[in-house]
């Protein structure tokens, strides 16, 4: 089903931030913001949190345990070898492989997590609101049903903070 959106287009980072922060103050619910590069005020204001760093930590922890126990199994339990009386469990020299292979595991799993959570994968069709958002425009998207404040009021607010365009758009549910 198609939904009605209100789109505010800004030309620069600081007009966007000013309008965005003012809108939040007035209790406007912002659906999404599209920018050509990451802007921390926006990421902060949207109140989304990413737990990808925690995920990466636990992938690493799991990898360390698996790798060390795997090497212990191979070198001590499954196929112990005598090297001039050295202990079978040559733990300190297992560390090198552990570090490097842990890094490899973290990378692969974190990339996979990113792809799944951010829904970024090869060949995905982009749900583009305004095609200029990857070039030079900064876009605020509001869902007309849930934006909480009246359309004329928001339009005026955006324009007073330097929006170059404010327009309505009907499209399928995005983002």
């Amino acid at each position: 089903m198609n939904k009605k959106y209100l789109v505010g287009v800004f030309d620069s980072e600081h007009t966007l931030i000013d309008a965005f922060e003012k809108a939040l103050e007035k209790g406007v619910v912002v659906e999404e913001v599209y920018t050509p590069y990451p802007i921390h005020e926006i990421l902060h204001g949207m109140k989304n949190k990413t737990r990808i760093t925690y995920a990466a930590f636990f992938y690493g922890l799991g990898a360390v345990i698996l790798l060390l126990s795997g090497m212990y199994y191979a070198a001590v339990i499954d196929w112990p070898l005598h090297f001039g009386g050295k202990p079978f469990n040559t733990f300190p020299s297992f560390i090198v492989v552990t570090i490097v292979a842990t890094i490899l595991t973290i990378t692969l799993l974190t990339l996979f997590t990113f792809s799944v959570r951010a829904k970024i994968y090869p060949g995905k069709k982009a749900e583009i609101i305004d095609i200029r958002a990857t070039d030079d425009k900064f876009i605020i998207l509001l869902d007309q049903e849930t934006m909480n404040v009246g359309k004329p009021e928001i339009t005026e607010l955006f324009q007073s903070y330097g929006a170059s365009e404010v327009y309505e758009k009907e499209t399928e549910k995005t983002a």
Partner: protein
Amino acid sequence: MYKTDVRGKLIDGEEKSLSQISAEILAPIYAKTPRWWYITMGIALLMFAWGIQSVYITLTQGIGAWGQNSTVAWGWEIINFVWWIGIGHAGTAFSIFLLILRQKWRTAINRAAEAMTVVAVLCAALFPLLHMGRPWLFFWIFPYPNTRGPLWVNFNSPLFWDFVAISAYLLISASFWYFGMVPDFATIRDTTKSKIKKAIYGFFSFGWTGSSKEWLRFEGLAFVLGGIAAVLVVSVHSIVSTDFAVSVEPGWHTTLFPPYFVVGAIFSGFAMVLTLVTLMKKLYNMEDFITSRHVDAVCRVLVFISLIMGTAYITEIFIAWYSGSEYEFYTFFKNRITGDYAFQFWAMFTLNALLPQLFWSKKIRNSIWVVFVISLLINLGMWYERFNIVVTSLSKNYLPASWAAYHPTSVEIGFFVGTLGMFTAGVLLFFRYIPQIAISEVKMVAKFNKQQTSHLKSGNHHDYE
């Protein structure tokens, strides 16, 4: 934070709008392919073809087609392997270390450095693979439950560490590079007029829209990959150095090796970056983005690293005398500084430790063609360094009866030339089809070009990236 008054502007020319930045960086992709590109590509492919022929001979006749003998069991292949891996160190070093040091000038260069890394590591990986003799059984190096015992790999061998480290390094630098390009591919998708480009770059842009949710996770991912890749930069070449240092060969058995190798790798990598950016600057008119101050900054880094290299060379020589070990003494004083391999030693010393000292002069740093030539010569010097390490130590060690000389055969030369062709072709493809400079990152730092003013809220932020 980046101080405009310390290093000057990040982007030259008249103040650019964001769409101008996209358009200027993407110009080579939209323009017609220049004639020199086809000519260079032709030469690169010819070189590559010679490489293929050499690999074919190696595969059908075995590594007996190479010049190695039982004394000098490692020759050009290990030299070239270490050389390429060293060059491959710059991409991640650039991206990560300059990120940690908050050097915003890296944004114009990091993409090229990372691209070069990926191609160089691919070139490097071919050498140990072929050196195995029976490369079709290379998967035996994976520690997997097998029907040969199961016989496990030696987890204490630096050669196995090397295998793990290089696979990890290749994967991480490739993914770090690729994910950095996703927003730029989306920019191409959304600005191109060609339907074919829209479809192809659209596919590779993974459905990127630039929403805050995407940027948030993108930054999280960059943080994780960057953080762990910093460890990897140091560990990969340390591990390569242990391939040598854990043996008892004179000239190899030294604790200096890991830092010496890591610094040397970054040295050669930065030199190759310098080669590439001077080419980009001149051939693709990227002069507004890669300013003379960018080149200047890389040159300064090279002077500093060159001093470390010189210190390392002299330390090795000093310890060979001071340790009182006659074998060490012989290797350094009779087989490197003087003797059969004196030319290679002094070529290394001159090109790596002395020549880059010219960069103390501002005039030389500003003269782009001199910089270009010196950057090539440094890479030649770094090749001689690896020759010194590999060949001189092996050729005359403890037992005079087994002393031998080493000469490469045409197959080995062809193999090396083939990888040079592969590298050149890879770089040319990069120049032609991929945004040479990270567009979104340049846009992000473009605001630092203006005088800092208090109303510019985001100008106060330095915890970016």
